[in-house]
């Protein structure tokens, strides 16, 4: 039950994009088509889970015993970057189809701040390993959900008459704001 609540909280109430405003760059960048949004969402679910697992172990077994808490950010980035590279190399050989599907999004995720954000958040909230993994997966699903919804809206928007001054990024930002307000309706349910 505890994990279900955690899942709902992470997906809807504290949605990583629409409530915590992490990972806005891919949210605006790769949300023009639903297909690419789904690809990006899957890649984030995958990388976020794996990277949270590794950074959690790094924190508990290397940084904490040595008293190197101040190196958290820099060592996390190092680990995440090499991890994504590793995954990319293996994926290219083992599953070319999946590699094609994720495409350029996989390396792009390295610099996605919601990955680093979640890795740091689970330490701050003092979760244990299992809780961290559940939290990471739920957050990533929340990210994918927000991205797909937003992409769907933008696909519809592309076919309507928009005043020329509002075309492109302005209308996208307004849409994102409205979507964030819509998600505020979930606050307090958990």
């Amino acid at each position, binding site marked *: 039950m505890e994990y279900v609540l955690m899942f709902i909280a992470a997906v809807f109430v504290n949605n990583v994009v629409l409530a915590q405003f992490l990972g806005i760059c891919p949210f605006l960048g790769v949300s023009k088509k639903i297909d690419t949004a789904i690809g990006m969402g899957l890649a984030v679910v995958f990388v976020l889970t794996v990277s949270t697992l590794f950074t959690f172990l790094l924190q508990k077994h290397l940084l904490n015993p*040595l008293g*190197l808490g101040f190196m958290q950010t820099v060592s996390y980035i190092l680990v995440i970057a*090499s991890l994504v590279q*590793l995954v990319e*190399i293996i994926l*290219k*050989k*083992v599953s070319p189809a999946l590699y094609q599907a994720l495409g350029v999004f996989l390396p792009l995720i390295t610099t996605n701040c919601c990955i680093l954000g979640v890795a740091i958040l689970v330490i701050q909230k003092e979760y244990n390993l299992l809780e961290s993994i559940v939290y990471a997966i739920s957050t990533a699903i929340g990210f994918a959900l927000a991205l797909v919804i937003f992409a769907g809206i933008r696909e519809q928007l592309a*076919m309507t008459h928009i005043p020329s001054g509002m075309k492109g990024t302005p209308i996208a930002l307004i849409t994102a704001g409205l979507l964030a307000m819509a998600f505020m309706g979930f606050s307090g349910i958990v």
Partner: protein
Amino acid sequence: MILIAIISLGGIGAVGAILLYATSKKFEIHEDPRIARVQEVLPGANCGGCGFPGCSGFANACVNAENLDNLLCPVGGSAVMEKVAIILEKEASKTDPTVAVVRCNGTCEARPKTNQYNGVSSCAIASMLYGGETGCSYGCLGFGDCEAACDFDAIHINPETRLPEVIEDKCTSCGACVKACPKNIIELRKKGPKSRRIFVSCVNKEKGGVARKACTNACIGCGKCEKECAFGAITIENNLAYIDPVKCRLCRKCVVVCPTMAIHELNFPPRKEKDTEPAVKPQKKPEPIETTTPENK
């Protein structure tokens, strides 16, 4: 303290580097070096006109194929395919260059509006709803889906006629506009010698009177051109004439007899006055070469 920090961070980095090196060696993919060389000679437009996902997909298909018969880069044409053939030591199939042709001449003047459409500005959506703003339900809708589909800036809607116009020099005949047009108006036709070509600029299949009422430039299927053509290149089907680009010898007789001026000639020198006979015959008669021109009927 500093030392520990440096050592541990360096350690993480070193472990990561070794791990990456080891996996990249273990999971190395042996790509055929010819794929990269073929890709170099391809135009790199990634338009998908060949039917493969991008130029790398096409290069891969070329290397793996036994012969190059059914493989053609529409952008590069025969010139590029010959280069590919040299790299792969295979025979390239020869094809004539093609170009996109708009088969509708229903300008605003010729085709009076019968209603007004205020919906989404997209041919695909408008064609799902109904036949268009004019009496001709076969003709161009003029919302420019073809213009949006073109990666090469080669097709534009003329604001006066509201018909698309192809810029021949830019057109690579990738076929993107052909797929984008919900009315199947655009056709890839043989470019012809000195890019001279003759085509029926109408796709209306209504009977003569109905077609004529909807658009004064429509093909009414009267059959005059069919009788005039000495080479059997023109066929009439469903009240619509079609000129076979393979059989057509560019004599231009059909252009003159068409009562509605639906047959268009492009890039020909002007005729001499009072001379209904073809003024200048093309110097060399084009040899009837096998083409792969698709007929989008």
